[in-house]
């Protein structure tokens, strides 16, 4: 009886140790979802065509296919017009979208390796974009005296018109 108990105890301990061993193995080599590196997407864009020789005929486009603005923008953001233009446009887009978030036009949620942008559907925002912050910056003088004075003048005229109407 005692020997049976000892065998069972040893078996359980072996099972426990085996479990620990498997656990360690899985932690050393975790199965992670495959993810493309940021610089190397799954479908890498085709390399830009070789530079055209500049002549007196003006600029030469990429292809004969006429692209839409959004398609050209996507190509720039993918780096098909070089990394410099990609950095410039992506920086501007991030600033614009961040302002849109600030204005409540869109909301951005991040979860792990996913980014979602949503438009609030509560109907509280009838205006898609409120450029009030631009006006604030003009009045702060960030765009020079001429712009600030013009806005001042326009505001005074507007207020005067409102008073006359009322």
């Amino acid at each position: 009886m005692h020997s049976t108990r000892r065998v069972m105890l040893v078996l359980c301990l072996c099972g426990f140790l085996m479990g620990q061993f498997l656990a360690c193995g899985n932690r050393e080599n975790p199965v992670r979802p495959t993810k493309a590196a940021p610089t190397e997407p799954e479908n890498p864009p085709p390399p830009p065509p070789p530079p055209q020789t500049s002549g007196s005929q003006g600029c030469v486009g990429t292809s004969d296919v006429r692209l839409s603005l959004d398609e050209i923008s996507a190509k720039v953001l993918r780096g098909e017009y070089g990394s410099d233009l990609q950095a410039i446009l992506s920086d501007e887009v991030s600033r614009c979208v961040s302002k849109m978030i600030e204005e409540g036009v869109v909301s951005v949620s991040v979860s792990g390796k996913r980014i979602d942008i949503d438009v609030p559907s509560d109907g509280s925002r009838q205006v898609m974009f409120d450029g009030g912050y631009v006006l604030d910056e003009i009045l702060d003088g960030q765009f020079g005296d001429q712009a600030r004075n013009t806005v001042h003048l326009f505001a005074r005229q507007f207020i005067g018109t409102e008073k006359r109407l009322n």
Partner: protein
Amino acid sequence: MMLKLVSLLALLALFTIGCSNETRLTSVQRQVKSISAEDVIRIASGSISANSIAKETARHVGGQLLAIAYTRYQTAGCTSQDLERLPDSAFSENLRRLYADLGTVFEQPEKAK
């Protein structure tokens, strides 16, 4: 007593194995106040998963910014001949290509659409 000990050890072993294969089933979504340029590039290039609105927003906002830049350039009276005077470099060449591609959109917008 021995049976209880065995059961306890067996449960412990199963629990340990189960924990080793644990995967994160739920993820917490958090709202962010801003989006970085790197995130914009990841969304546009598809190297990070994003919903369709995010992809459209990145493309469309970028398109509008390009349109503004092109219109401003044209309004200032500049043409492709001015771009030709830029020093020869990869950046200049990319800029010329971009200008030419944008020109096809603005010259015949009905065909571009």
